[in-house]
Each structure stands twice: as C-alpha cells, then as structure tokens.
C-alpha cells in the first residue's frame, strides 16, 4: 500500500510529514520506558522480519496482490511505540529501493506505521479484555486486530486523498474500492500475524509484549538440563 510521489499534493504531504515526525517523537519517548535490554534487540529483529514479509505479495483477487503491513504484528510483539518505530525504519529503508515516494514518506509512516500500530494495538487490547486469559486469545486477538488494521489504513489513505489528492474523483467510489480490496488483504494480514505471534509465543513467550499479562501467571520451573537454564512453564 506504499503511496508513490504525486498521489497527494504538497500541503497534505507536508502535514503528514509533520504528523509522522511528531508521532515518532512521542514513540521514542514512550519506547524508552518500555524497551529494556532484552526487548531492544527484538525490536530490531521485528523490523527486519516485517521488511522481509512485506516483500511477499500474495494474490487476493484477479490481477491484484497484497502484502503484510505489519504494524499490528510489531505492536503485539514489542509494544505500539516501538512497533510504529519498526515500521518507520522499514519504510525508510524501502524508500532506498524506490518503494513508496519520498514526499509521501510522511503519509506512509502515518498510515502504515502509526495508524496500524496504535489502532491495531487498541483493538488487540480490547479483544484480550473479553477473551479468556490464555495463549490462544493472544493469537486470535492479534490476528483480528491486524486484519482490521488494513482496511482502516486504506480508509486513512482515502481521507488524505479526499483532502489533497492530485486527481478530482468521486470519493465514495475510491473509498469503496480501497476498503473492499483491503478487507481481502486484511485476511492475509490476520493469518500471517496470528501465525507469527503463535510461533514466537511457543518458542519464547517472554519476548511477546502483548502476552506479558500471561507471563505473570506462569510458574518458574527449574529444569535439570545440562545447561540448567530456568524454563518458563507452559
């Protein structure tokens, strides 16, 4: 969903650039309190993983493809602030590959980073509140939140397009088309997110930010393996 240069006019590009800078400044401040020595390298890995999976376009309908956005996934793994920063890093590197415009970088960071991470995380937390307290709920909530974040991000683009798109078109038609195709892409996003969160949860439950509430329920078990590493009980 990378917006190329030219789709949005100068005022909207400048305004979204300002939103991106302010939003990321807030994220840096907030991530400072959340990331410790253990999670900081995980955030770097999350960014690298999102970059990789964003390259994997999957077909969604005749002649149309989509790929993971990854904001909700990153938010569940390392928290929304660091998650949005991961996406900003990914988008910045992608700009070097001419994927997404330079003047559109602010809009892309706002829609694919800040919006998907924070809105996705809000949906994730809301779902966790009503679901039973176990691993499966974290996986399910992450998948649904990620799925919803995609059409939301697409609707965000249409809002910017309505404010300052460089083509005069009936907005209702653009909105219907954008949300329609991104609901389909959202299904893929949800599946990939649920699968990834599930895999990390199985291997290292202590490295999933969105599952910290479960970690407190777990009991410490000292195993007698030769390395004698304390294992977190599952």
């Amino acid at each position, binding site marked *: 969903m990378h917006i190329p240069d030219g789709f949005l006019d100068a005022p909207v590009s400048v305004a979204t650039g300002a939103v991106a800078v302010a939003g990321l400044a807030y994220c840096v401040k907030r991530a400072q309190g959340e990331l410790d020595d253990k999670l900081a*390298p*995980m955030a770097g890995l999350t960014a690298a993983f999102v970059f990789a999976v964003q*390259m994997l376009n999957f077909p969604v309908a005749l002649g149309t493809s*989509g790929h993971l956005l990854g904001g909700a996934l990153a938010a569940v793994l390392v928290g929304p602030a660091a998650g949005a920063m991961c996406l900003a*890093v990914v988008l910045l590197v992608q700009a070097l590959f001419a994927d997404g415009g330079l003047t559109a970088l602010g809009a892309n960071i706002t829609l694919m980073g800040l919006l998907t991470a924070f809105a996705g995380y809000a949906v994730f937390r809301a779902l966790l509140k009503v679901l039973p307290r176990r691993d499966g709920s974290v996986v399910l909530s992450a998948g649904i939140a990620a799925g919803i974040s995609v059409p939301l991000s697409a609707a965000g683009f249409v809002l910017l397009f309505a404010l300052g*798109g*460089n083509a005069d*078109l009936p907005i209702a038609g*653009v909105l219907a088309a954008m949300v329609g195709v991104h609901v389909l892409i959202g299904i893929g996003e949800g599946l990939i997110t649920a699968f990834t969160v599930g895999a990390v949860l199985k291997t290292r439950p202590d490295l999933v930010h969105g599952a910290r509430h479960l970690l407190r329920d*777990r009991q410490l078990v000292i195993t007698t393996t030769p390395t004698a590493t304390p294992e977190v009980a599952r």
Partner: protein
Amino acid sequence: MTRRNGFLLLGLLVALLLAGVVSGFASSSPDGLEKVAEDKGFSRTAEDSALADSPVADYAVDGVQNERLSTGLAGVLGVTVTFAFGLGLFALVRRKGPATPADRDDADAPTTS
C-alpha cells in the same frame, strides 16, 4: 550462545530466507492501492521517486540478470540494512540506567512487573 542470541539469530535467518528466496515466488500483480489507482484513473498522477534510479530500485540489483536472484539479493540487502539500523536505533532509545537482575539473560523468570 545465550538463548536470547539464539532466538535473534534464528529469527534473522528466517527473515533472510523469506526475503532472499521466497520473495522470488511472490505475486507480481499490482497491489491493492496500485490496482485501485489504475481502475479509478489516478495512477497517472504517480511520479517517479527521486530514488527511482537507485542501483537497487524496485528490489532489483543493477547488473544481475536473473530476476529471482536479483530480487533475492535486494531482499537480503534490505533485511540486513533494516536489522542493523533497527538494532542501532533501539539500542539508543532503550531504557537507560543500571541493569536490574531481571534484565540479565539468565533471569528469564517472570520476576519483572
């Protein structure tokens, strides 16, 4: 090797495989936004990025003829740069101050808040 570094290396390896190998089999159809722009008629307003002439533009490395190899190389390069950039950035912003026992790698127990 500590367990944390083991997980990091495993994760990085998965990312490199996805970007370096699996990417060659990804769909090349236009994505959702590109398709809508074509259908609705605003794709003509797109302009080339100032970096459209970059030697790795569009995930193709200049001078490498084989398409899958070219995409794979660009992917490996991108993952490496993103990982290095991310590691450096998050090392800078992470919580400062003396490490608590829970921050040590051998203290993975749920003793933190």
